[in-house]
């Protein structure tokens, strides 16, 4: 059953060669080599997992496949011939469809109109035949397990159903390749089962699927082969079932199983293992949010650096945002220095003494058009003011102190922040939050995208701050940084804490092991629910 819908005429694959192939693709962005001679061959009818951590090059590679980026080097081949897609639309017309994490449809239009947009059935006057369109849409969607009134606006459906509509649309425009970017991130288990059913059907119709996900058990459940990218390079490609979970994780994180270098690359020098007995300065209890966090509890004591480990999408940044009050929660409590935050707002959390250095400093942190001085003083202004008026001398003093203490390299306090290097921008942000005299500092990827020297300085600073009695919550994808910087590490997976490591247990192997350990759900068992 189930073969009546989908591509109009299930064409035979063109021989046995790959349907889509990247040969030695390189892509350079200013200052970064996002892809370094990456090759990937996608066979008709296979489900190919594409995995890697942040900055590994997955999304760049997908954008090369879908015509968003053009490669600087290398060749893209599609159905056996060299190909070059000018726009995403161009790629789509050739048969490469992409299902994005965020559903890319028009929420206010009806389900049927979304599904049929651009190829609506016409009557003999050339006018859209609404009745036929709706009937057709209903028929197609039934094949994807979606049974609903197709005249309703799309936004009234659940996210899972919306994603099925997107998928149905992608496949029904005669796709040869379907790229799915984190398709299950907002699906219920039942919807995931339906999605997997559809994926298997695509496989039977010789449609190739590129499947991007961080959920390991899903990969083992539905994928045939896997390609691992790391730092823009191909780390591994092969049959997924020949690879143990722990091997896959170590490939993604770039760490050899059982053999971890203890080189002096990081600049952390603080005496670890000092018994920290004080009361927690911040304590988060039972943070819960559907699909995102499942009962996460964290506590940080003064002078302690607590690391949050886990793969991308495990809920690390979300935990940070929840603590600072920037992520609405279903339930949970944040306690600062013994007293619970009553109203969960960012302003309240900052006032109570929590500061967050966000992951994406461009979008969430610095204001590039303002000067170093203004950027530093911004958050602290209310605290510096007397009767609502802030004296310039006072600001100068604060700014000067932090520029010296953090060794910010700028021509003057009046230089625009956008003209500074990434590392110095990061320090400006750090100065902004330190000027607030916080009790707890949450650092989300504090050294990402900054050069080696600045990285070491930021790491040394984290040490200094902890010694001065600040509680630090450190999030980093750099395992080495995490292990050498933290006193204690909580390992997250799929929005839940799956392990806590302290003292001698704080090692890279232990982190990887606890990620792997808990992702060993039996695929067959999960399958049976479908």
């Amino acid at each position: 059953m189930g073969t009546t819908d989908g591509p109009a005429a299930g064409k035979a694959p063109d021989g046995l060669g790959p349907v889509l192939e990247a040969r030695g693709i390189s892509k350079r962005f200013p200052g970064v080599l996002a892809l370094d001679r990456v090759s990937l061959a996608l066979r008709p009818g296979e489900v190919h997992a594409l995995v890697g951590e942040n900055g590994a090059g997955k999304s760049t590679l997908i954008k090369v496949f879908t015509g968003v980026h053009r490669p600087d080097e290398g060749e893209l081949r599609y159905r056996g011939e060299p190909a070059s897609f000018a726009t995403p639309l161009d790629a789509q017309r050739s048969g490469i469809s992409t299902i994005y994490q965020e559903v890319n449809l028009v929420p206010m239009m009806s389900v049927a109109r979304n599904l049929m947009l651009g190829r609506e059935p016409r009557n003999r006057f050339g006018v859209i035949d609404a009745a036929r369109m709706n009937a057709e849409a209903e028929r197609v969607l039934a094949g994807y397990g979606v049974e609903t009134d197709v005249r309703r606006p799309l936004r009234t459906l659940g996210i899972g159903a919306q994603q099925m509509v997107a998928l149905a649309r992608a496949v029904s425009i005669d796709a040869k390749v379907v790229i799915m970017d984190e398709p299950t991130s907002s699906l219920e288990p039942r919807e995931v089962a339906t999605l997997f059913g559809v994926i298997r059907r695509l496989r039977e119709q010789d449609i190739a699927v590129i499947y991007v996900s961080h959920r390991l058990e899903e990969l083992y459940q539905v994928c045939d082969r896997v390609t691992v990218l790391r730092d823009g390079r191909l780390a591994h490609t092969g049959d997924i079932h020949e690879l143990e979970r722990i091997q896959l994780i170590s490939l993604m994180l770039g760490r050899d199983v059982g053999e971890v270098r203890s080189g002096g690359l990081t600049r952390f020098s603080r005496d670890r293992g000092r018994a920290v007995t004080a009361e927690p300065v911040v304590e988060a209890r039972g943070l819960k949010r559907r699909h995102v966090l499942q009962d996460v509890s964290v506590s940080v004591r003064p002078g302690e650096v607590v690391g949050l480990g886990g793969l991308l999408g495990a809920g690390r940044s979300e935990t940070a945002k929840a603590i600072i009050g920037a992520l609405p929660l279903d339930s949970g409590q944040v306690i600062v220095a013994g007293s619970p935050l009553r109203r969960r707002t960012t302003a309240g959390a900052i006032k109570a003494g929590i500061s967050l250095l966000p992951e994406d400093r461009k979008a969430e942190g610095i204001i590039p058009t303002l000067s170093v001085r203004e950027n530093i003083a911004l958050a602290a202004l209310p605290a510096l003011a007397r009767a609502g008026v802030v004296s310039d001398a006072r600001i100068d003093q604060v700014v000067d102190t932090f520029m010296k203490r953090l060794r910010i390299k700028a021509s003057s306090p009046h230089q625009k922040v956008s003209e500074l290097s990434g590392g110095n921008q990061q320090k400006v942000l750090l100065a902004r939050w330190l000027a607030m005299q916080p009790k707890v500092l949450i650092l989300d990827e504090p050294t990402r995208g900054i050069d080696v020297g600045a990285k070491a300085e930021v790491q040394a600073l984290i040490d200094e701050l902890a010694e001065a009695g600040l509680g630090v919550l450190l999030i980093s994808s750099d395992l080495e940084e995490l292990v050498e910087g933290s006193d204690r590490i909580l390992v997250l997976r799929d929005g839940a804490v799956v392990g806590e490591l302290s003292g001698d247990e704080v090692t890279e192997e232990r982190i990887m092991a606890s990620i792997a350990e808990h992702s060993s759900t039996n695929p067959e068992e999960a399958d049976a629910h479908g």
Partner: protein
Amino acid sequence: MTTDTTVIAPESGNGAARKERISHLIQQHGALMVLFALIVVGTFGFDSFATPENAASVVVASSFTAIIAIGMTFVIISGGIDLSVGSLFVLGGVLAAWGSQYGAVVALLLPLLACGAVGLAQGLLIARTGMAPFIVTLAGLLGVRGLMLAISDEGATTYLVRDRTFAALGQGEILGLTYPVYITIVLALLGMLLLQRTGFGQNVYAIGGNEQAAALMGVPVARTKVYVYLMSGLLAGLAGALNAARLSSGVTILGIGLELDVIAAVVIGGTLLTGGAGGLTGTIAGVLLLGVIQSLINQVGNLTSSFQQVVSGAFLALVVIAQRLLSKAQRL
């Protein structure tokens, strides 16, 4: 393959679905309901309200706004705005009156050509350079008004309509209603067909609803936008020409601020100012509603007609608040 038949139930239950359908209905037809209510109130409240003469005068006066509002509905559904229509309306009138010395054909084509060109230029700027519609059409508003003042010697010269055939286009009557009313009806019906039952109309909705998604779904975004502003310009010019024919002259002072009345009518008619939803039935109801409010205030003898703007303004505010609440209700 029998495992993939799981039904994904819609998120909302039956009660919620009904609530959503009702709020959708109010959003779409709220203006029509209020229009009926006001007509009933007027009929029982004032003897001189429900007369054929009064009804005809409301409908005739509304027809010019309605023609412009048809174009504006497309623009707003596509997520844009066109502030230049008031100026184009005046320019169209002046050009038609001036052109009428060369015959009816010139009198009709000249304003269409000129206003269409302005609309096309605005559309190209908006679609190809990504400039904000508000700014581009504000520039259009100012520029066209200046142009109109220049050709009419700062408004001192009023061109009279010289051609009888052309004047008849604005003044001729069938069953007590002037031709522009019938032209409006035909245009509105064509507009509905275009909006609801053609690919172009679907593209307009898709662009206003989610432009990025529309582009990825293969909608020719730039071309559709150009057409939308071209259409708006053409309709504003046509309305101006018909108005000149009705008045037998190209009056230069009418039409200042008309764009705001038109936008108000479209929004009152249930089209979302943020784009993506709305329709022409509502727009026509919105235009008539503003006309009826004016007529009712005229019936209340001791109120000046300026009071009409106060009421329209208050009504617009109410509609926007209601829309906000309704779209919240629809989001469930």
